[in-house]
């Protein structure tokens, strides 16, 4: 055999062997899901399901779980229609004109109607709420998705994006993204990577609500004007007009239905963001409707319906709840040796005086003069940090390298994709959004890998049937951090505590024999630059970690007043195991990683001082 043919043969054998090895490991990761079958073609869409995934990435129950979510959403939407019908007739008076008496209710109910409207997607099967339901604190509502594919399937099943669904709770409180020169820091914005800046509407949360409807991997509408088009036939159209004064009498061309029924990114639409041909006046009207869509949803998210300040901790601040011994210990650790409140600000001016919880011996002579500086602390600093999380090979986007039935390829880079977070957004990089402030671009290398500091409030929220996120439960399987690497709050706290104690020079799924991933082995960071060293070796004991988890559970809304629509979960709880190793049977080995794609890591200003591997 000629040498060249021999080389080709050898390479083919190696590829097949490698693929077999990889697939076997992936199948192993499905061991708790023996009933897995390829998902049926979703009844809502005219195309075959997009399934580029190796077995085990799409959960075995995805079809039934999607159906459950649609039922739950329809139920809440019907409830919102009843609430709308119960609103008093609007009395618009004053200058500027105001809906006197019922204006707040009107905007909130409108936001709720929009948030739960499944029609706002090409196949009328996906609402904003599809990834955010009340019983999880408005984060991801499907336990099996949280275990296996991290990101949620969009309207075109089963395209999916790259990060966990962030909680709605308190998101309207984030200020407009700015670089504060005095602090030398970025503050504000919405989304893990800050790409919803708020530059135009002066509300990051309102602009956040404008992204998923036209994200190709989420709700997937191809044109923002599709929202105005779908509103023309919405039951609650009159409420939208009453609140905003927008005319929905836009002259849409005859092909609008066909365009809005086509998922974004489809080859047939070309590359334009505005495939619906409108007059300038009608385009302006549709854009105004889209702005008011975002503002309505933001008002709903900021209302007590979602951001309720009704937790045990709020009751404690008001003197109406006594923290248990473990909760109080967790609180002191949160402020003390855990140092959690250096970013997750708890609004108290408490001096760190208690050496039992890791405070300085130098402070022993001080009295705790701490008072409540803020009655509604948000448990975030509105900042960004790279906590050094490992690359999670379960993220669906890594596998979406083939074109779907309409010719769209979500991720041509496969495992050469790296999530640089805020740095990627500042460069207007792949998978982010255009950065509206060019003066920030030089800062990109100093924030590569940084993700938004989420509020710690409601991280622990879980449905009443399985009221914890922690095994053995009965528990609701959530996912934590931007890439869903932690599957319990115990793991999250343990990561902060021991990242640098048990750091190994391996990728996820390859911890050395004799170690257990997430227990005494943390794989290396996906983005090694700008790692936050406030955490990583906190010196907490196992008991102290559990006490911090107990404290986090006091931050769940719904203690002082019932949390609206909290009782809508109709799925199943998980049981058994331990919080420390929760979800570990779904770990899969990271394949050999190619170098970071030049479309991501080769965009100026280049990551540094060291390149991203």
């Amino acid at each position, binding site marked *: 055999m000629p040498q060249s043919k021999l080389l080709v043969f050898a390479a083919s054998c190696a590829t097949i062997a490698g693929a077999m090895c990889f697939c076997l490991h992936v199948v192993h990761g499905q061991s708790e899901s023996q009933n897995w079958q390829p998902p049926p073609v979703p009844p809502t869409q005219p195309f075959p399901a997009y399934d580029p995934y190796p077995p085990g990435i799409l959960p075995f129950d995805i079809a039934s779980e999607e159906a459950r979510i649609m039922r739950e959403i329809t139920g809440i939407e019907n409830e919102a229609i009843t609430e709308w019908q119960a609103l008093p007739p609007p009395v618009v008076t004053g200058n500027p004109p105001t809906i006197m008496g019922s204006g707040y209710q009107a905007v909130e109910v409108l936001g709720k109607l929009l948030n739960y409207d499944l029609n706002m997607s090409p196949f009328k099967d996906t609402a904003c709420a599809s990834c955010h339901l009340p019983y999880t604190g408005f984060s991801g509502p499907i336990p099996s998705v949280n275990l296996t594919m991290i990101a949620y399937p969009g309207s075109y099943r089963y395209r999916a994006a790259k990060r966990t669904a962030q909680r709605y709770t308190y998101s309207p409180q984030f200020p407009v993204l700015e670089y504060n*020169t005095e*602090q030398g820091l970025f503050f504000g914005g919405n989304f893990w990577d800050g790409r919803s800046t708020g530059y135009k509407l002066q509300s990051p949360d309102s602009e956040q609500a404008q992204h998923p409807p036209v994200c190709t991997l989420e709700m997937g509408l191809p044109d923002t004007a599709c929202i105005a088009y779908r509103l023309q036939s919405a039951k609650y159209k009159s409420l939208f007009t009453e609140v905003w004064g927008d005319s929905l009498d836009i002259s849409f061309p005859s092909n609008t239905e066909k365009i809005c029924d086509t998922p974004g990114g489809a080859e047939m639409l070309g590359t334009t963001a505005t495939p619906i041909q409108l007059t300038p006046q009608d385009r302006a009207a549709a854009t105004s409707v889209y702005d008011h869509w975002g503002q309505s949803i933001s008002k709903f998210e900021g209302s007590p319906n979602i951001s309720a300040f009704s937790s045990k901790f709020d009751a404690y601040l008001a003197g109406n709840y006594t923290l248990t011994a473990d909760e109080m210990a967790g609180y002191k650790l949160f402020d003390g040796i855990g140092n959690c409140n250096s970013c997750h600000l708890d609004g108290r001016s408490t001096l760190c005086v208690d050496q039992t*919880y890791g405070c300085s011996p130098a402070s022993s002579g001080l009295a705790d003069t*701490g008072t409540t500086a803020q009655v509604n602390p948000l448990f975030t600093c509105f900042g960004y940090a790279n906590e050094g999380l490992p690359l999670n090979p379960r993220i669906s986007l890594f596998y979406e390298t083939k074109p779907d039935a309409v010719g769209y390829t979500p991720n041509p880079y496969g495992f050469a994709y790296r999530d640089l977070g805020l740095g990627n957004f500042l460069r207007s990089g792949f998978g982010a959004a255009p950065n509206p402030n060019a003066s920030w671009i030089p800062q990109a290398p100093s924030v590569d890998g940084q993700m938004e500091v989420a509020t710690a409030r409601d991280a622990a929220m879980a449905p009443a049937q399985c009221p914890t996120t922690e095994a053995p439960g009965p528990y609701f399987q959530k996912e934590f951090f931007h890439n869903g690497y932690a599957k319990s709050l115990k793991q999250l706290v343990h990561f902060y505590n021991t990242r640098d104690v048990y750091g190994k*020079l391996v990728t996820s799924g390859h911890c050395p024999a004799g170690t257990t991933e997430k227990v005494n082995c943390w794989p290396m960071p996906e983005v090694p630059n700008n790692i936050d060293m406030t955490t990583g*070796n906190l010196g907490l004991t196992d008991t102290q970690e559990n006490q911090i988890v107990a404290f986090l559970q006091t931050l769940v809304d719904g203690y002082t007043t019932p949390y609206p629509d909290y009782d809508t979960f109709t799925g199943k709880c998980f049981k058994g195991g331990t919080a420390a190793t929760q979800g570990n049977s779904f770990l899969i080995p990271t394949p050999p990683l190619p170098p970071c794609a030049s479309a991501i890591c080769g965009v100026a200003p280049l990551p540094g001082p060291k390149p991203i591997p």
Partner: protein
Amino acid sequence: MNRMLLKMVMAAAVGSLLICNAAFSQAVPKPAKKAAHVDIIQGPVLEFAREDLAIVRWTTNNPGGTDDHFSVVHYGTNPKDLSQTAKSHIRLNRFHQDTLFRVRMDGLSPKTTYYYTVTSEGSDGKGDGEVSPVNQFTTPASGELVQAFPQPQPGIPPK
């Protein structure tokens, strides 16, 4: 009378501007007051080392200044040429008396002795003023670990 009225209007205008600015900037707290003097009160010591990576830690009194701070290590294999620099983000806790600084140095060579000094600076680039004497550590062979910082025992917080 007119002059008095003008002064009152101007004062009111300036006052309202100040109030507006205060409200606007509430979300972004100003940097904390800087400490008069920053001293290293513990360390620096090696916390962890493997063939390619080392972590050094030290404690100072809380330096104040910007919330985001950098732990800084100047290092090299020659004690007279500490020309390499590693910086790591840490976030000050305004209500702690002390601040723990930690730095990751990666891209190191195995079985090599490194010399270093440590200091710290705010994210505005202003140094805190403290500089340690020259210290040293040696990276282990490939596959080995040095876990120099004592690990906590249950119920006993680290000193």
